Protein backbone atom coordinates (compact mmCIF):
# COMPACT_ATOMS: atom_id res chain seq x y z
CA UNK A 1 0.00 0.00 0.00
CA UNK A 2 1.50 3.23 -1.15
CA UNK A 3 0.96 6.01 1.32
CA UNK A 4 0.45 9.47 -0.08
CA UNK A 5 0.74 13.01 1.11
CA UNK A 6 -2.21 15.33 1.44
CA UNK A 7 -1.89 19.04 0.80
CA UNK A 8 -4.40 21.73 1.56
CA UNK A 9 -3.70 25.09 -0.06
CA UNK A 10 -5.82 28.02 1.00
CA UNK A 11 -8.78 25.77 1.68
CA UNK A 12 -11.76 27.49 3.22
CA UNK A 13 -15.45 26.74 3.72
CA UNK A 14 -18.22 29.24 4.16
CA UNK A 15 -21.78 27.99 4.35
CA UNK A 16 -24.65 29.62 2.45
CA UNK A 17 -26.03 31.03 5.68
CA UNK A 18 -22.82 32.98 6.14
CA UNK A 19 -21.21 30.79 8.77
CA UNK A 20 -17.45 30.58 8.20
CA UNK A 21 -16.46 27.09 9.27
CA UNK A 22 -12.93 27.09 7.93
CA UNK A 23 -10.78 30.11 7.11
CA UNK A 24 -8.17 29.72 4.36
CA UNK A 25 -5.84 27.04 5.63
CA UNK A 26 -2.53 25.69 4.36
CA UNK A 27 -1.76 22.32 5.79
CA UNK A 28 0.30 19.37 4.67
CA UNK A 29 0.28 15.77 5.82
CA UNK A 30 3.42 13.95 4.73
CA UNK A 31 3.13 10.42 3.32
CA UNK A 32 2.78 7.97 6.21
CA UNK A 33 2.24 10.70 8.79
CA UNK A 34 -0.26 10.51 11.64
CA UNK A 35 -1.71 13.99 11.82
CA UNK A 36 -4.21 14.93 14.49
CA UNK A 37 -6.65 17.81 14.14
CA UNK A 38 -7.65 18.91 17.61
CA UNK A 39 -9.66 21.79 18.96
CA UNK A 40 -12.86 22.73 20.81
CA UNK A 41 -16.33 22.16 19.32
CA UNK A 42 -17.03 24.35 16.37
CA UNK A 43 -13.38 24.96 15.53
CA UNK A 44 -13.79 23.48 12.07
CA UNK A 45 -11.80 20.29 12.45
CA UNK A 46 -14.60 17.99 11.36
CA UNK A 47 -15.43 20.29 8.47
CA UNK A 48 -11.82 20.19 7.37
CA UNK A 49 -11.85 16.40 7.50
CA UNK A 50 -15.03 16.28 5.46
CA UNK A 51 -13.50 18.62 2.93
CA UNK A 52 -10.58 16.27 2.54
CA UNK A 53 -12.98 13.33 2.26
CA UNK A 54 -15.01 15.05 -0.43
CA UNK A 55 -18.23 15.13 1.55
CA UNK A 56 -18.18 18.92 1.34
CA UNK A 57 -16.81 21.19 -1.36
CA UNK A 58 -14.43 24.01 -0.39
CA UNK A 59 -15.39 27.60 -0.98
CA UNK A 60 -11.83 28.29 -2.07
CA UNK A 61 -8.47 26.62 -2.30
CA UNK A 62 -7.03 23.35 -3.56
CA UNK A 63 -6.92 19.87 -2.13
CA UNK A 64 -4.14 17.66 -3.46
CA UNK A 65 -3.94 13.99 -2.60
CA UNK A 66 -0.94 12.01 -3.75
CA UNK A 67 0.00 14.73 -6.16
CA UNK A 68 -3.44 14.76 -7.79
CA UNK A 69 -5.70 17.78 -7.52
CA UNK A 70 -8.95 16.37 -6.19
CA UNK A 71 -10.67 19.61 -5.31
CA UNK A 72 -13.55 18.97 -7.71
CA UNK A 73 -13.51 15.19 -7.43
CA UNK A 74 -16.46 13.62 -5.57
CA UNK A 75 -15.88 11.43 -2.54
CA UNK A 76 -16.33 8.27 -4.56
CA UNK A 77 -13.24 8.97 -6.59
CA UNK A 78 -10.78 9.99 -3.91
CA UNK A 79 -9.90 6.48 -2.76
CA UNK A 80 -9.84 7.46 0.90
CA UNK A 81 -11.30 5.54 3.81
CA UNK A 82 -13.13 7.15 6.67
CA UNK A 83 -14.11 5.92 10.11
CA UNK A 84 -17.12 7.87 11.39
CA UNK A 85 -17.83 8.79 14.98
CA UNK A 86 -20.97 6.68 14.86
CA UNK A 87 -19.11 4.05 12.82
CA UNK A 88 -21.90 4.20 10.22
CA UNK A 89 -21.97 0.44 9.77
CA UNK A 90 -24.63 -0.74 7.33
CA UNK A 91 -27.18 -2.14 9.79
CA UNK A 92 -28.93 -4.42 7.34
CA UNK A 93 -25.73 -6.15 6.18
CA UNK A 94 -23.60 -8.72 7.98
CA UNK A 95 -20.15 -7.77 9.17
CA UNK A 96 -18.70 -9.63 6.20
CA UNK A 97 -20.83 -7.66 3.74
CA UNK A 98 -19.97 -4.45 5.55
CA UNK A 99 -16.30 -5.14 5.08
CA UNK A 100 -16.73 -6.23 1.49
CA UNK A 101 -18.96 -3.37 0.38
CA UNK A 102 -16.23 -0.97 -0.68
CA UNK A 103 -14.58 -3.67 -2.76
CA UNK A 104 -17.85 -4.86 -4.25
CA UNK A 105 -18.70 -1.38 -5.40
CA UNK A 106 -15.38 -1.07 -7.13
CA UNK A 107 -15.84 -4.37 -8.93
CA UNK A 108 -13.03 -6.21 -7.15
CA UNK A 109 -13.22 -9.95 -7.84
CA UNK A 110 -14.84 -12.29 -5.36
CA UNK A 111 -11.67 -14.17 -4.58
CA UNK A 112 -9.60 -11.07 -3.88
CA UNK A 113 -12.43 -9.68 -1.76
CA UNK A 114 -12.76 -12.85 0.22
CA UNK A 115 -9.05 -13.03 0.84
CA UNK A 116 -8.74 -9.43 1.97
CA UNK A 117 -11.79 -9.63 4.22
CA UNK A 118 -10.39 -12.74 5.88
CA UNK A 119 -7.01 -11.13 6.37
CA UNK A 120 -8.40 -7.95 7.89
CA UNK A 121 -10.89 -9.84 10.07
CA UNK A 122 -8.03 -11.92 11.37
CA UNK A 123 -5.85 -8.89 12.08
CA UNK A 124 -8.65 -7.20 14.00
CA UNK A 125 -9.82 -10.41 15.68
CA UNK A 126 -13.35 -10.17 14.36
CA UNK A 127 -13.38 -13.39 12.35
CA UNK A 128 -15.98 -14.96 14.63
CA UNK A 129 -18.35 -12.08 14.01
CA UNK A 130 -18.34 -12.10 10.25
CA UNK A 131 -21.86 -13.45 9.94
CA UNK A 132 -23.42 -11.28 12.60
CA UNK A 133 -25.18 -7.94 12.16
CA UNK A 134 -23.86 -4.70 13.66
CA UNK A 135 -26.76 -4.56 16.10
CA UNK A 136 -25.51 -7.74 17.73
CA UNK A 137 -22.05 -6.35 18.43
CA UNK A 138 -20.70 -4.38 21.34
CA UNK A 139 -19.36 -0.85 20.95
CA UNK A 140 -15.77 -1.97 20.86
CA UNK A 141 -16.51 -4.67 18.32
CA UNK A 142 -18.36 -2.23 16.09
CA UNK A 143 -15.43 0.10 16.19
CA UNK A 144 -13.17 -2.67 15.00
CA UNK A 145 -15.52 -3.48 12.16
CA UNK A 146 -15.52 0.18 11.16
CA UNK A 147 -11.75 0.08 11.18
CA UNK A 148 -11.77 -3.13 9.20
CA UNK A 149 -14.03 -1.64 6.58
CA UNK A 150 -11.46 1.09 6.07
CA UNK A 151 -8.48 -1.25 6.04
CA UNK A 152 -9.93 -3.70 3.57
CA UNK A 153 -9.97 -1.00 0.91
CA UNK A 154 -6.24 -0.38 1.18
CA UNK A 155 -6.90 3.29 0.56
CA UNK A 156 -4.49 6.11 -0.15
CA UNK A 157 -5.10 7.52 3.35
CA UNK A 158 -7.27 7.05 6.39
CA UNK A 159 -9.56 9.68 7.88
CA UNK A 160 -10.84 9.31 11.43
CA UNK A 161 -13.69 11.45 12.71
CA UNK A 162 -13.60 11.12 16.50
CA UNK A 163 -13.83 7.33 16.31
CA UNK A 164 -12.96 6.87 19.99
CA UNK A 165 -15.49 9.31 21.43
CA UNK A 166 -18.30 6.78 21.64
CA UNK A 167 -16.28 4.23 23.52
CA UNK A 168 -16.34 3.64 27.24
CA UNK A 169 -13.42 5.46 28.85
CA UNK A 170 -11.96 2.16 29.96
CA UNK A 171 -11.86 0.94 26.37
CA UNK A 172 -10.48 4.13 25.01
CA UNK A 173 -6.89 3.72 26.15
CA UNK A 174 -6.82 0.27 24.66
CA UNK A 175 -8.33 1.46 21.40
CA UNK A 176 -5.78 4.28 21.24
CA UNK A 177 -2.98 1.79 21.54
CA UNK A 178 -4.50 -0.32 18.81
CA UNK A 179 -4.70 2.69 16.51
CA UNK A 180 -1.04 3.53 17.09
CA UNK A 181 -0.18 -0.08 16.47
CA UNK A 182 -2.17 -0.01 13.25
CA UNK A 183 -0.33 3.04 12.05
CA UNK A 184 3.02 1.48 12.77
CA UNK A 185 2.08 -1.65 10.92
CA UNK A 186 0.48 -0.08 7.87
CA UNK A 187 2.62 3.01 7.66
CA UNK A 188 -0.33 4.76 6.03
CA UNK A 189 -1.16 8.44 6.09
CA UNK A 190 -3.77 9.03 8.77
CA UNK A 191 -5.67 12.17 9.66
CA UNK A 192 -7.46 11.97 12.98
CA UNK A 193 -9.95 14.43 14.39
CA UNK A 194 -10.58 14.64 18.11
CA UNK A 195 -11.60 17.17 20.73
CA UNK A 196 -9.67 15.34 23.43
CA UNK A 197 -6.28 16.92 23.85
CA UNK A 198 -4.91 13.95 25.72
CA UNK A 199 -5.83 11.69 22.84
CA UNK A 200 -4.10 14.10 20.49
CA UNK A 201 -0.95 14.11 22.53
CA UNK A 202 -0.67 10.35 22.81
CA UNK A 203 -1.63 9.43 19.28
CA UNK A 204 0.08 11.75 17.00
CA UNK A 205 3.06 12.33 14.90
CA UNK A 206 2.02 15.93 14.55
CA UNK A 207 -0.81 17.92 16.05
CA UNK A 208 -2.71 20.74 14.36
CA UNK A 209 -4.48 22.79 17.03
CA UNK A 210 -7.50 24.55 15.59
CA UNK A 211 -9.72 27.35 16.79
CA UNK A 212 -12.58 29.09 15.03
CA UNK A 213 -11.66 27.86 11.60
CA UNK A 214 -7.95 28.55 11.87
CA UNK A 215 -4.93 26.36 12.53
CA UNK A 216 -3.15 27.92 15.47
CA UNK A 217 -0.12 25.67 15.56
CA UNK A 218 1.11 22.55 13.79
CA UNK A 219 3.96 20.69 15.47
CA UNK A 220 4.99 17.52 17.27
CA UNK A 221 3.26 16.98 20.62
CA UNK A 222 6.24 17.82 22.76
CA UNK A 223 6.96 20.99 20.86
CA UNK A 224 3.36 22.13 21.30
CA UNK A 225 3.50 21.28 24.97
CA UNK A 226 6.80 23.02 25.61
CA UNK A 227 6.51 25.99 23.25
CA UNK A 228 2.84 26.78 22.64
CA UNK A 229 2.56 29.56 20.14
CA UNK A 230 -0.18 31.46 21.93
CA UNK A 231 -2.29 31.45 25.07
CA UNK A 232 -5.07 29.45 23.45
CA UNK A 233 -2.78 26.55 22.52
CA UNK A 234 -1.05 26.84 25.88
CA UNK A 235 -4.29 26.38 27.76
CA UNK A 236 -5.85 23.87 25.40
CA UNK A 237 -3.02 21.35 25.53
CA UNK A 238 -2.11 19.86 28.87
CA UNK A 239 -4.46 19.09 31.70
CA UNK A 240 -4.97 20.71 34.09
CA UNK A 241 -4.53 23.84 31.97
CA UNK A 242 -1.52 26.05 32.13
CA UNK A 243 -1.86 28.86 34.64
CA UNK A 244 -1.79 32.35 33.17
CA UNK A 245 -0.88 35.25 35.43
CA UNK A 246 -0.34 38.95 34.74
CA UNK A 247 3.37 39.38 33.99
CA UNK A 248 3.58 42.61 35.97
CA UNK A 249 2.39 40.73 39.07
CA UNK A 250 5.49 38.65 38.98
CA UNK A 251 7.69 41.66 38.68
CA UNK A 252 8.50 41.19 35.02
CA UNK A 253 9.24 44.24 32.98
CA UNK A 254 6.75 43.52 30.21
CA UNK A 255 4.05 45.61 28.48
CA UNK A 256 0.78 46.01 30.37
CA UNK A 257 -1.47 43.03 29.66
CA UNK A 258 1.31 40.55 29.08
CA UNK A 259 0.76 37.16 30.61
CA UNK A 260 3.09 34.63 32.07
CA UNK A 261 2.25 30.97 31.87
CA UNK A 262 3.36 28.13 34.04
CA UNK A 263 2.10 24.59 34.05
CA UNK A 264 0.66 23.27 37.32
CA UNK A 265 3.34 20.68 37.82
CA UNK A 266 6.11 23.24 37.30
CA UNK A 267 4.90 25.31 40.25
CA UNK A 268 6.97 24.58 43.38
CA UNK A 269 5.45 24.85 46.83
CA UNK A 270 7.96 26.04 49.46
CA UNK A 271 7.82 27.19 53.02
CA UNK A 272 9.38 30.51 52.17
CA UNK A 273 9.86 32.64 49.11
CA UNK A 274 8.85 35.75 47.27
CA UNK A 275 5.31 34.86 46.24
CA UNK A 276 2.75 34.08 48.89
CA UNK A 277 -0.48 32.19 48.25
CA UNK A 278 -3.41 30.81 50.24
CA UNK A 279 -4.47 27.20 49.79
CA UNK A 280 -8.16 27.05 48.89
CA UNK A 281 -8.69 23.41 48.12
CA UNK A 282 -6.71 20.23 47.69
CA UNK A 283 -7.83 17.45 45.34
CA UNK A 284 -6.12 14.13 45.81
CA UNK A 285 -5.62 12.42 42.46
CA UNK A 286 -4.01 9.29 43.75
CA UNK A 287 -0.61 9.77 42.16
CA UNK A 288 -0.42 13.43 43.17
CA UNK A 289 -2.47 16.33 44.53
CA UNK A 290 -4.06 19.27 42.76
CA UNK A 291 -3.66 22.33 44.94
CA UNK A 292 -5.97 25.27 44.20
CA UNK A 293 -4.31 28.47 45.34
CA UNK A 294 -5.02 32.14 45.48
CA UNK A 295 -2.14 34.59 45.31
CA UNK A 296 -1.77 37.21 48.01
CA UNK A 297 -1.67 40.00 45.52
CA UNK A 298 -3.91 42.64 43.93
CA UNK A 299 -6.96 40.96 42.31
CA UNK A 300 -5.93 37.70 43.98
CA UNK A 301 -5.58 35.61 40.86
CA UNK A 302 -6.10 31.90 41.25
CA UNK A 303 -3.65 29.21 40.35
CA UNK A 304 -3.44 25.45 40.24
CA UNK A 305 -0.38 23.48 41.19
CA UNK A 306 0.17 19.78 41.20
CA UNK A 307 2.32 18.51 44.01
CA UNK A 308 3.47 15.07 45.14
CA UNK A 309 2.30 15.77 48.68
CA UNK A 310 -0.52 17.84 50.14
CA UNK A 311 0.61 21.09 51.78
CA UNK A 312 0.14 21.12 55.52
CA UNK A 313 -0.04 24.88 56.04
CA UNK A 314 -2.80 27.16 54.86
CA UNK A 315 -0.26 29.58 53.53
CA UNK A 316 2.50 28.57 51.18
CA UNK A 317 5.14 30.25 49.11
CA UNK A 318 5.50 29.62 45.43
CA UNK A 319 8.55 29.29 43.29
CA UNK A 320 8.38 29.59 39.53
CA UNK A 321 11.51 28.19 37.91
CA UNK A 322 12.56 30.71 35.33
CA UNK A 323 13.09 28.17 32.57
CA UNK A 324 9.55 26.81 33.00
CA UNK A 325 7.91 30.15 32.39
CA UNK A 326 6.18 31.09 29.14
CA UNK A 327 5.76 34.73 28.29
CA UNK A 328 2.85 35.91 26.17
CA UNK A 329 2.31 39.36 24.72
CA UNK A 330 -0.97 41.21 25.37
CA UNK A 331 -2.37 39.86 22.07
CA UNK A 332 -1.78 36.30 23.30
CA UNK A 333 1.17 35.43 21.15
CA UNK A 334 4.26 33.85 22.54
CA UNK A 335 7.22 36.07 23.19
CA UNK A 336 10.72 34.78 22.43
CA UNK A 337 12.64 33.35 25.37
CA UNK A 338 15.39 35.99 25.40
CA UNK A 339 13.12 38.49 27.04
CA UNK A 340 12.60 36.24 29.98
CA UNK A 341 16.28 35.97 30.62
CA UNK A 342 16.62 39.70 30.44
CA UNK A 343 13.77 40.27 32.87
CA UNK A 344 15.07 38.15 35.66
CA UNK A 345 12.81 37.20 38.46
CA UNK A 346 14.19 37.04 41.97
Amino acid sequence: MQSVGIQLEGVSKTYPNGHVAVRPIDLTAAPGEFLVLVGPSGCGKSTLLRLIAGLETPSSGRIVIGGVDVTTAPAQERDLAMVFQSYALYPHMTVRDNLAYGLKVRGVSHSVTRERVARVADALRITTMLDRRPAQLSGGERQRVALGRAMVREPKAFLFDEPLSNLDPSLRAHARAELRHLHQRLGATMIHVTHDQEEAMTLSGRIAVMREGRVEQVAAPLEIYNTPVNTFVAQFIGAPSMNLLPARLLGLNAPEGSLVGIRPHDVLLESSGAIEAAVEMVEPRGHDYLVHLRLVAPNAPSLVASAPAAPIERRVFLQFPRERLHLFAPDGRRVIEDHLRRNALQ
Partner: protein
Amino acid sequence: MNNAIDPHREERRLAALLIAPAAGLIVVMALFPIAATVSEALHGHDLRLPWLGRPFVGLANFVEAAGDPRFLSAVGHTVLFALVSVPIEIALGVALALVMHRALRGRAAIRVVALLPWTVPTIVAALIWRFMFESYSTASFDWFVHPRAAWVPIVAADVWKTTPFVAILLLAGLQTIDPAIDEAARIDGAGPLRRFFTVTLPLLGPALVVATAFRALDALRLFDLVYVMTGGGPGTATEPLSLYAFVALMQRLRFGYGAALSMTVFLLTFAFALIWIRTVGHSLTDDHV
Protein backbone atom coordinates in the same frame (compact mmCIF):
# COMPACT_ATOMS: atom_id res chain seq x y z
CA MET B 1 -10.70 29.13 -7.83
CA ASN B 2 -14.27 28.51 -6.88
CA ASN B 3 -15.33 25.02 -7.86
CA ALA B 4 -18.45 24.86 -5.78
CA ILE B 5 -20.84 24.89 -8.70
CA ASP B 6 -19.49 21.99 -10.77
CA PRO B 7 -19.82 19.03 -8.40
CA HIS B 8 -23.34 20.07 -7.57
CA ARG B 9 -24.47 20.13 -11.14
CA GLU B 10 -24.53 16.34 -11.24
CA GLU B 11 -26.58 16.24 -8.11
CA ARG B 12 -29.01 18.83 -9.37
CA ARG B 13 -29.49 16.95 -12.57
CA LEU B 14 -30.15 13.74 -10.67
CA ALA B 15 -32.63 15.55 -8.46
CA ALA B 16 -34.49 16.94 -11.47
CA LEU B 17 -34.65 13.47 -12.97
CA LEU B 18 -36.04 11.92 -9.82
CA ILE B 19 -38.65 14.59 -9.33
CA ALA B 20 -39.78 14.72 -12.93
CA PRO B 21 -42.30 11.84 -12.89
CA ALA B 22 -44.10 13.04 -9.79
CA ALA B 23 -43.97 16.68 -10.81
CA GLY B 24 -45.03 15.90 -14.36
CA LEU B 25 -47.95 13.85 -13.15
CA ILE B 26 -49.11 16.56 -10.82
CA VAL B 27 -48.78 19.30 -13.39
CA VAL B 28 -50.69 17.42 -16.06
CA MET B 29 -53.33 15.72 -14.00
CA ALA B 30 -53.80 18.26 -11.27
CA LEU B 31 -52.54 21.71 -12.10
CA PHE B 32 -54.01 21.84 -15.59
CA PRO B 33 -57.45 20.70 -14.42
CA ILE B 34 -57.28 23.20 -11.59
CA ALA B 35 -56.42 25.93 -14.06
CA ALA B 36 -59.25 24.68 -16.25
CA THR B 37 -61.63 24.93 -13.33
CA VAL B 38 -60.54 28.47 -12.64
CA SER B 39 -61.09 29.26 -16.27
CA GLU B 40 -64.49 27.59 -16.31
CA ALA B 41 -65.54 29.56 -13.28
CA LEU B 42 -64.99 32.72 -15.24
CA HIS B 43 -67.08 31.59 -18.20
CA GLY B 44 -70.72 30.89 -18.78
CA HIS B 45 -70.86 27.23 -19.74
CA ASP B 46 -74.12 25.36 -19.55
CA LEU B 47 -74.10 22.00 -21.28
CA ARG B 48 -77.84 22.01 -21.52
CA LEU B 49 -77.75 25.25 -23.48
CA PRO B 50 -74.90 24.65 -25.93
CA TRP B 51 -76.10 27.26 -28.35
CA LEU B 52 -75.12 29.93 -25.90
CA GLY B 53 -71.49 28.95 -26.39
CA ARG B 54 -68.89 29.66 -23.69
CA PRO B 55 -68.57 33.39 -23.25
CA PHE B 56 -66.26 35.04 -20.78
CA VAL B 57 -68.38 36.38 -17.97
CA GLY B 58 -65.82 37.47 -15.43
CA LEU B 59 -67.10 37.12 -11.90
CA ALA B 60 -70.75 36.80 -12.89
CA ASN B 61 -70.95 33.21 -11.65
CA PHE B 62 -69.64 34.25 -8.28
CA VAL B 63 -72.06 37.14 -8.12
CA GLU B 64 -74.89 34.77 -8.91
CA ALA B 65 -73.71 32.47 -6.15
CA ALA B 66 -73.65 35.30 -3.65
CA GLY B 67 -77.32 35.88 -4.29
CA ASP B 68 -78.24 32.21 -4.48
CA PRO B 69 -80.01 31.16 -1.26
CA ARG B 70 -79.12 27.54 -1.82
CA PHE B 71 -75.45 28.51 -2.04
CA LEU B 72 -75.63 30.58 1.10
CA SER B 73 -77.26 27.80 3.09
CA ALA B 74 -74.68 25.37 1.72
CA VAL B 75 -71.88 27.61 2.99
CA GLY B 76 -73.67 27.86 6.32
CA HIS B 77 -74.04 24.11 6.52
CA THR B 78 -70.37 23.57 5.73
CA VAL B 79 -69.03 26.05 8.22
CA LEU B 80 -71.40 24.98 10.97
CA PHE B 81 -70.55 21.36 10.39
CA ALA B 82 -66.85 22.14 10.69
CA LEU B 83 -67.38 24.23 13.81
CA VAL B 84 -69.31 21.44 15.49
CA SER B 85 -67.53 18.31 14.42
CA VAL B 86 -63.89 19.38 14.60
CA PRO B 87 -63.84 20.29 18.31
CA ILE B 88 -65.59 17.03 19.16
CA GLU B 89 -63.10 15.08 17.10
CA ILE B 90 -60.16 16.85 18.69
CA ALA B 91 -61.46 16.31 22.21
CA LEU B 92 -62.23 12.64 21.64
CA GLY B 93 -59.00 12.27 19.73
CA VAL B 94 -57.04 13.51 22.73
CA ALA B 95 -58.89 11.04 24.93
CA LEU B 96 -58.25 8.17 22.54
CA ALA B 97 -54.61 9.15 22.15
CA LEU B 98 -54.19 9.09 25.91
CA VAL B 99 -55.78 5.66 26.07
CA MET B 100 -53.47 4.37 23.38
CA HIS B 101 -50.46 5.99 24.99
CA ARG B 102 -51.07 4.86 28.54
CA ALA B 103 -52.21 1.34 27.79
CA LEU B 104 -49.88 -1.17 29.30
CA ARG B 105 -51.33 -4.31 27.82
CA GLY B 106 -53.04 -5.20 24.59
CA ARG B 107 -51.58 -2.23 22.74
CA ALA B 108 -51.84 -3.96 19.41
CA ALA B 109 -55.47 -4.89 19.94
CA ILE B 110 -56.31 -1.38 21.06
CA ARG B 111 -54.66 0.05 18.01
CA VAL B 112 -56.58 -2.28 15.73
CA VAL B 113 -59.88 -1.32 17.30
CA ALA B 114 -58.98 2.34 17.23
CA LEU B 115 -57.88 2.27 13.59
CA LEU B 116 -60.83 0.37 12.14
CA PRO B 117 -63.29 3.25 11.86
CA TRP B 118 -60.75 5.34 9.99
CA THR B 119 -59.64 2.68 7.56
CA VAL B 120 -63.13 1.58 6.64
CA PRO B 121 -64.39 3.26 3.43
CA THR B 122 -66.34 6.46 4.01
CA ILE B 123 -69.37 5.06 2.31
CA VAL B 124 -69.30 2.07 4.60
CA ALA B 125 -69.26 4.42 7.57
CA ALA B 126 -72.08 6.40 6.02
CA LEU B 127 -74.15 3.31 5.43
CA ILE B 128 -73.55 1.85 8.87
CA TRP B 129 -74.62 5.01 10.61
CA ARG B 130 -77.55 5.50 8.30
CA PHE B 131 -78.58 1.99 9.13
CA MET B 132 -78.18 2.52 12.87
CA PHE B 133 -80.12 5.74 12.93
CA GLU B 134 -82.84 4.31 10.74
CA SER B 135 -83.18 1.54 13.24
CA TYR B 136 -83.54 4.17 15.95
CA SER B 137 -86.27 5.90 13.98
CA THR B 138 -89.81 5.27 15.01
CA ALA B 139 -93.06 5.78 13.17
CA SER B 140 -93.41 9.27 14.62
CA PHE B 141 -89.80 10.40 14.42
CA ASP B 142 -87.58 9.64 11.48
CA TRP B 143 -84.11 11.05 11.93
CA PHE B 144 -83.66 11.56 8.25
CA VAL B 145 -86.85 13.42 7.66
CA HIS B 146 -86.16 16.26 10.04
CA PRO B 147 -83.94 18.93 8.44
CA ARG B 148 -82.02 19.64 11.64
CA ALA B 149 -82.05 16.16 13.13
CA ALA B 150 -80.58 14.73 9.93
CA TRP B 151 -77.29 16.39 10.82
CA VAL B 152 -76.88 14.31 13.94
CA PRO B 153 -76.12 11.01 12.21
CA ILE B 154 -73.82 12.87 9.81
CA VAL B 155 -71.79 14.41 12.60
CA ALA B 156 -71.82 11.12 14.49
CA ALA B 157 -70.51 9.25 11.48
CA ASP B 158 -67.80 11.82 10.82
CA VAL B 159 -66.69 11.89 14.42
CA TRP B 160 -66.64 8.10 14.54
CA LYS B 161 -64.61 7.85 11.41
CA THR B 162 -62.02 10.55 11.97
CA THR B 163 -61.36 10.44 15.71
CA PRO B 164 -58.82 7.63 15.21
CA PHE B 165 -56.97 9.74 12.64
CA VAL B 166 -56.73 12.64 15.09
CA ALA B 167 -55.76 10.25 17.86
CA ILE B 168 -52.85 8.87 15.90
CA LEU B 169 -51.56 12.29 14.96
CA LEU B 170 -51.71 13.23 18.64
CA LEU B 171 -50.20 9.94 19.73
CA ALA B 172 -47.07 10.83 17.84
CA GLY B 173 -47.00 14.12 19.70
CA LEU B 174 -47.53 12.40 23.05
CA GLN B 175 -44.69 10.05 22.42
CA THR B 176 -42.24 12.88 21.96
CA ILE B 177 -43.03 14.39 25.34
CA ASP B 178 -40.25 13.63 27.77
CA PRO B 179 -41.78 11.54 30.58
CA ALA B 180 -39.39 13.20 33.00
CA ILE B 181 -41.38 16.42 32.74
CA ASP B 182 -44.56 14.74 33.91
CA GLU B 183 -42.65 13.04 36.70
CA ALA B 184 -41.21 16.37 37.79
CA ALA B 185 -44.74 17.77 37.97
CA ARG B 186 -45.81 14.80 40.06
CA ILE B 187 -43.00 15.38 42.50
CA ASP B 188 -43.99 19.01 42.59
CA GLY B 189 -47.38 17.81 43.85
CA ALA B 190 -49.62 18.27 40.82
CA GLY B 191 -52.57 15.91 40.51
CA PRO B 192 -53.45 14.09 37.27
CA LEU B 193 -55.99 16.62 36.01
CA ARG B 194 -53.72 19.55 36.68
CA ARG B 195 -50.81 17.76 35.07
CA PHE B 196 -52.90 17.13 32.02
CA PHE B 197 -53.91 20.73 31.58
CA THR B 198 -50.66 22.39 32.53
CA VAL B 199 -48.07 19.96 31.21
CA THR B 200 -49.47 17.49 28.69
CA LEU B 201 -51.84 19.71 26.77
CA PRO B 202 -49.44 22.62 26.22
CA LEU B 203 -46.69 20.27 25.08
CA LEU B 204 -49.16 18.69 22.71
CA GLY B 205 -49.72 22.13 21.23
CA PRO B 206 -47.93 21.68 17.90
CA ALA B 207 -49.55 18.29 17.28
CA LEU B 208 -52.95 19.76 18.11
CA VAL B 209 -52.42 22.55 15.65
CA VAL B 210 -51.54 20.11 12.89
CA ALA B 211 -54.41 17.80 13.70
CA THR B 212 -56.94 20.63 13.85
CA ALA B 213 -55.71 22.01 10.56
CA PHE B 214 -56.00 18.65 8.82
CA ARG B 215 -59.44 17.98 10.20
CA ALA B 216 -60.79 21.41 9.50
CA LEU B 217 -59.60 21.26 5.91
CA ASP B 218 -61.29 17.91 5.46
CA ALA B 219 -64.47 19.05 7.17
CA LEU B 220 -64.79 21.99 4.82
CA ARG B 221 -64.56 19.61 1.88
CA LEU B 222 -67.25 17.27 3.21
CA PHE B 223 -68.84 15.28 0.40
CA ASP B 224 -68.78 11.48 0.43
CA LEU B 225 -70.48 11.08 3.76
CA VAL B 226 -73.43 13.29 3.00
CA TYR B 227 -73.86 12.08 -0.56
CA VAL B 228 -74.27 8.53 0.62
CA MET B 229 -76.11 9.17 3.84
CA THR B 230 -78.74 11.70 2.95
CA GLY B 231 -78.04 12.83 -0.57
CA GLY B 232 -78.16 16.32 0.84
CA GLY B 233 -81.70 15.81 2.06
CA PRO B 234 -84.26 16.13 3.25
CA GLY B 235 -84.50 18.54 0.36
CA THR B 236 -81.27 20.45 0.64
CA ALA B 237 -81.23 20.70 4.41
CA THR B 238 -77.99 18.80 4.79
CA GLU B 239 -76.29 19.90 1.61
CA PRO B 240 -72.71 21.06 2.08
CA LEU B 241 -70.92 23.25 -0.45
CA SER B 242 -69.10 20.42 -2.21
CA LEU B 243 -72.32 18.57 -2.80
CA TYR B 244 -74.04 21.62 -4.24
CA ALA B 245 -71.11 22.09 -6.60
CA PHE B 246 -71.36 18.45 -7.60
CA VAL B 247 -75.07 18.79 -8.24
CA ALA B 248 -74.57 21.88 -10.35
CA LEU B 249 -71.81 20.22 -12.32
CA MET B 250 -72.91 16.66 -12.86
CA GLN B 251 -76.67 16.83 -12.52
CA ARG B 252 -77.55 20.27 -13.76
CA LEU B 253 -74.60 20.32 -16.15
CA ARG B 254 -73.95 23.98 -15.45
CA PHE B 255 -70.22 23.70 -15.78
CA GLY B 256 -69.42 27.36 -15.40
CA TYR B 257 -71.52 27.86 -12.33
CA GLY B 258 -70.50 24.52 -10.87
CA ALA B 259 -66.85 25.44 -11.38
CA ALA B 260 -67.40 28.71 -9.58
CA LEU B 261 -69.05 26.86 -6.71
CA SER B 262 -66.20 24.40 -6.43
CA MET B 263 -63.78 27.31 -6.51
CA THR B 264 -65.51 28.71 -3.45
CA VAL B 265 -64.86 25.43 -1.68
CA PHE B 266 -61.21 25.95 -2.44
CA LEU B 267 -61.33 29.58 -1.42
CA LEU B 268 -62.95 28.60 1.85
CA THR B 269 -60.24 26.07 2.65
CA PHE B 270 -57.55 28.46 1.52
CA ALA B 271 -58.92 31.25 3.68
CA PHE B 272 -59.00 28.94 6.64
CA ALA B 273 -55.43 27.80 6.02
CA LEU B 274 -54.22 31.38 5.81
CA ILE B 275 -55.96 32.47 8.98
CA TRP B 276 -54.80 29.37 10.77
CA ILE B 277 -51.17 29.82 9.82
CA ARG B 278 -51.26 33.50 10.68
CA THR B 279 -52.77 33.14 14.11
CA VAL B 280 -51.64 29.77 15.36
CA GLY B 281 -48.65 28.94 13.23
CA HIS B 282 -46.77 31.98 14.42
CA SER B 283 -47.25 31.41 18.11
CA LEU B 284 -45.88 27.94 17.55
CA THR B 285 -42.50 29.10 16.48
CA ASP B 286 -41.73 31.39 19.37
CA ASP B 287 -43.16 29.85 22.50
CA HIS B 288 -42.16 26.25 21.92
CA VAL B 289 -39.48 25.17 24.37
